[in-house]
C-alpha cells in the first residue's frame, strides 16, 4: 500500500486543514475485467491517452494506462447511443483502462456508463479523454452501484469546440472510495458543459469529487451541481473550480454543492473555487449543508408516513431533478440504487 495524493486543488490554500488534496491508500491494480460495449460500430481498440492527461493522480493515470485503450469515434453528422458496462464479477477483481471519445461535427452521442458488480474490494481505475467538435452534443450518464469496498476512479478530461454541448450526469451509489476527477476546457465560442452528480453515502464511504472547468472561449457556459446525503461515518469532499480565463467575455458559470447530513459522524468538506481573469463574466457559487427540514418531515408524518419514509421522500425530491437529467433508461435503476444505498446504513 502506498499513500497517494489525489484531486489536488488547482489553487492551493492553507495546509493545516489538510484539504488541498486527499491522501489515499493505493496498492495498484491487476487488470482482469473487460468493458462490454452495447455496439461496436464506432469502437476500436488501440492508441493511447494524450501525454498531457493529468487525472486525479499520476499513479492513477498510470494504473489506468496499464490497461487497454479503446477509441470511440463518432464521425461527423451521426446521431447514436452507446453503453459501456464495467462489471466486476467474482474473480475479476479490477478493471484498468483508458478511453478516447470523439464526437464529430454536428454529431450526437448518448453515452451510458454502468459500473457495477458483486465483487468485494475490487477497483475500477478509468481515464477518459472526450473531445466534442463544432456543434456536437455529448450526453453522458454514469451509474456506479454495488461494488462494496471498491476503489472507483473516474478520471476525465473534456475539450469542447465551438457550440459543442456536453452534459455529464453521474449517480455515485456504489464503491467505498469514489474518486471523480473531471477537467473541462470550454475552448470554442458558445460551448456549454454541465456536471451533475448525486450520491448517497453511508458506512465509511468516501466521495472525493473534483471538477475544474476552464472558460476559454467567449460566451461559454458551465454548470456544476452536486447533491447528496451523508450517513454514518461517510465523508464527502467537493473541490469545484470555475476558472474564467482572460478573454472569455460573456461567459457564465455556476456551481452548487448541497449536502444533507443524516449522521453526527459524517464529514462534509466543500471547496468551491471561483478564479477570474475576465470582467465580463458571471460566476456564482452556492452551497448549503444541513439536516432535513423538520417542518417538511413533520408535514409528511402528519399524512401518515413514517419518519424514515418521510426522510426518503425529502432526499428523493432533492436528488430527483439531477436524476432526471440522466438517460431515461437508467432513471428507475438509479432510484432503486439510491434506496439501496440508503438501506446500506449501518445499524446503530
Amino acid at each position: 500500500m502506498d499513500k497517494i495524493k489525489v484531486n489536488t486543488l488547482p489553487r492551493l490554500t492553507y495546509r493545516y486543514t489538510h484539504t488541498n488534496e486527499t491522501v489515499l491508500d493505493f496498492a495498484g491494480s491487476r487488470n482482469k475485467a473487460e468493458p462490454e460495449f452495447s455496439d461496436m460500430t464506432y469502437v476500436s481498440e488501440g492508441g493511447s491517452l494524450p501525454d498531457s492527461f493529468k487525472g486525479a493522480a499520476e499513479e492513477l493515470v498510470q494504473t489506468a494506462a496499464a490497461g487497454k485503450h479503446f477509441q470511440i469515434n463518432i464521425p461527423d453528422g451521426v446521431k447514436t447511443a452507446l453503453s459501456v458496462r464495467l462489471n466486476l464479477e467474482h474473480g475479476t477483481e479490477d478493471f484498468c483502462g483508458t478511453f478516447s471519445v470523439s464526437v464529430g461535427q454536428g454529431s450526437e452521442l448518448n453515452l451510458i456508463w454502468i459500473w457495477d458488480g458483486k465483487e468485494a474490494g475490487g477497483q475500477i481505475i478509468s481515464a477518459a479523454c472526450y473531445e466534442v467538435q463544432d456543434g456536437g452534443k455529448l450526453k453522458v450518464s454514469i451509474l456506479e452501484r454495488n461494488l462494496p469496498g471498491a476503489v472507483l476512479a473516474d478520471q476525465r478530461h473534456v475539450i469542447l469546440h465551438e457550440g459543442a454541448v456536453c452534459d455529464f450526469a453521474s449517480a455515485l451509489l456504489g464503491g467505498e472510495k469514489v474518486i471523480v476527477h473531471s477537467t473541462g476546457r470550454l475552448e470554442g465560442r458558445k460551448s456549454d458543459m454541465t456536471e451533475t452528480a448525486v450520491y448517497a453515502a453511508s458506512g465509511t464511504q468516501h466521495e472525493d469529487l473534483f471538477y475544474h472547468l476552464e472558460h476559454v472561449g467567449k460566451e461559454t457556459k458551465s454548470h456544476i451541481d452536486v447533491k447528496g446525503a451523508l450517513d454514518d461515518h461517510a465523508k464527502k469532499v467537493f473541490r469545484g473550480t470555475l476558472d474564467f480565463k482572460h478573454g472569455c467575455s460573456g461567459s457564465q458559470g455556476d456551481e452548487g454543492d448541497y449536502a444533507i447530513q443524516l449522521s453526527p459522524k459524517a464529514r462534509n468538506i466543500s471547496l468551491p473555487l471561483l478564479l477570474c481573469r475576465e470582467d465580463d463574466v458571471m460566476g456564482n457559487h452556492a452551497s448549503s449543508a444541513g439536516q432535513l427540514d423538520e417542518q417538511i418531515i413533520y408535514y409528511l408524518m402528519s399524512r401518515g408516513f413514517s419518519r424514515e419514509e418521510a426522510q426518503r421522500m425529502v432526499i428523493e425530491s432533492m436528488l430527483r431533478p439531477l436524476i432526471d437529467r440522466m438517460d431515461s433508461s437508467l432513471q428507475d435503476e438509479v432510484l432503486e440504487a439510491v434506496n439501496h444505498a440508503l438501506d446500506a446504513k449501518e445499524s446503530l
Partner: protein
Amino acid sequence: MADTKKRSEVSDINRSIYDIKDEVSYSYKADTGLTEEIIREISAKKEEPEWMLKKRLQALKIYNELDIPPWMPDISELDMGHIDTYVRPKTDMKARWEDLPENIRDTFDRLGIPEAEKKSLAGVGAQYDSEVVYHNIQKELEEQGVIYVDFETAVKKYEHLVRPYFGTLITPSYHKFAALHYAVWSGGSFVYVPKGVHVNMPLQSYFRLNAPGAGQFEHTLIIVEEGADCHFIEGCSAPRYNVANLHAGAVELFVKKGATLRYSTIENWSKNMYNLNTKKAVVGEGGHMIWVSGSFGSHVSCLYPDTVLRGDNSTCEFTGITFAGKGQCLDTGAKVEAYGKNTSININSKSISKGGGEAVYRSVVHIGPHAEGAKGAISCESLMLDDESRSDTIPDIIIENDDIDLGHEATIGRIPDEDIYYLMSRGLSEEDAKAMLVRGFAEPISKELPLEYAVEMNRLINLEFEGAIG
C-alpha cells in the same frame, strides 16, 4: 457625496499627506537581518523581563525552521536580510501631545489625529515607527479600571495580566511570519476591560511606518472580561517608499463570557508594503466578536482574522472589503473555528479589483464535531472593474457534525450594464455611475465604520475613478 466633504477634518486630507516623509533622526537602529544578537539587543534595549527574551529566542528558532506557505502570494522581493527590524525615533514616551517633537507632531496633525481626539475619542495610542510615542487615555476610563497602554509598558507594569495571555492564542508556530513577529515584536497596544465595564467610546490606535526598510511588528492584546464590551479601532497609513516594507503584527483578542468586542480596521498602507498580519480572537460562552475590516493599501496583503468560537452560544460576525488596484495583490478573508454549541457565524466579504489588481478571498469555516446547533451564513461578492484584473475566491468549508445549518454564496462579475445605464439616464457620467455603484457595493462595510473612516473609505474609492464626483 459633496455634503460629506465638510463632515470631518479627516476627509479633507488629500492623498499627498499620506506620502509625506519626515526627516527623522534615529536614536537607535539595529543591524539589518535577523540574528540572535539582534533579538538580544532588542530585548536588552527594552529592559524586558527574562521570560520575554526567552519567548523571543524560541520564536526565532521556530522562524528559522518554518517554510513560507506555498499558497501565499509572491513575496520573493522581500529580503529579510535587508529589513531593519527595529527603528526607534528619538523621543521617549510622552503623556501630552504638545510635548512631541515638532516634525512628528506635524505628520500626525496632517493625519488629523488631534482632531479625531477632540471629537471625544476615548484614547489615542499613536505608534511612530516601532515605538509608541504618544499615549493618552481619558480619565473616566482609568476610573472604570480600563487599561489602555502601549505594549512595552504593559509587559513591565501589568505582567500579571499580560503573561498568561501573550502568545497563547497566536503561537509562534502558527506560521513563519507569526514566529518572526514574536522574535522581534515592538510596540503595540494593550487593552484590559474589567468585568461588566462598558466602554462607550471607541478606543483608537494609529500605526504609522516611517523610515525606509523598516519593519513593524506591533503586538496588540485585548482582554474583555465577562459581560464587558469594547470597540477598538485600528487605523493604518504609511508614506510611500521604494524599499520593500514589511508589516507582521499580531493581534490577540480574548472575549470572555457574555462579552462583546468590536474590532474595526481600515488599512491603507503604502503601495510597497508587505502586510503579513495575523489576528485571532477566542470567544467565550455567549460572547460576541465583531470584525470590520477594510483593506485598501499595501503591495501584498495576507490577512485572515481568525475567530475561535469556544463557548456555547458565542457568535462571530465578519464584514470585510478589499480594494485591489494596480500593482496590488490583496489576499484576505476570514477563518472561523466553531467548537461551542449553538454558535452563529456571519461572514460578509466583498472585493473589488481594478487596474490589474488581484483580490483573493480565502477562508476557512470549520464546524467541529461537538459544535451542534451551529448556524452560518457566508456571502462573498467579487467585483471586477476591468479585464486586466484578477479575482479569486477560495473558501474551505469543513463540517463535522449534522446538527448544523450553513449556507455559502459567492458571486463574481462586473457591474451590470443595466445599472450603469439607469444611473446615466439620471445624468451621471459613466465614471460617476461606476463610482456610485462601487460605493453602494462597499456601503455595508462603510456603514459599520465610524464616520470619519467611512468618509475616508469613500474618498479612497473615488480616487480610483478619475473625475468622479465626491
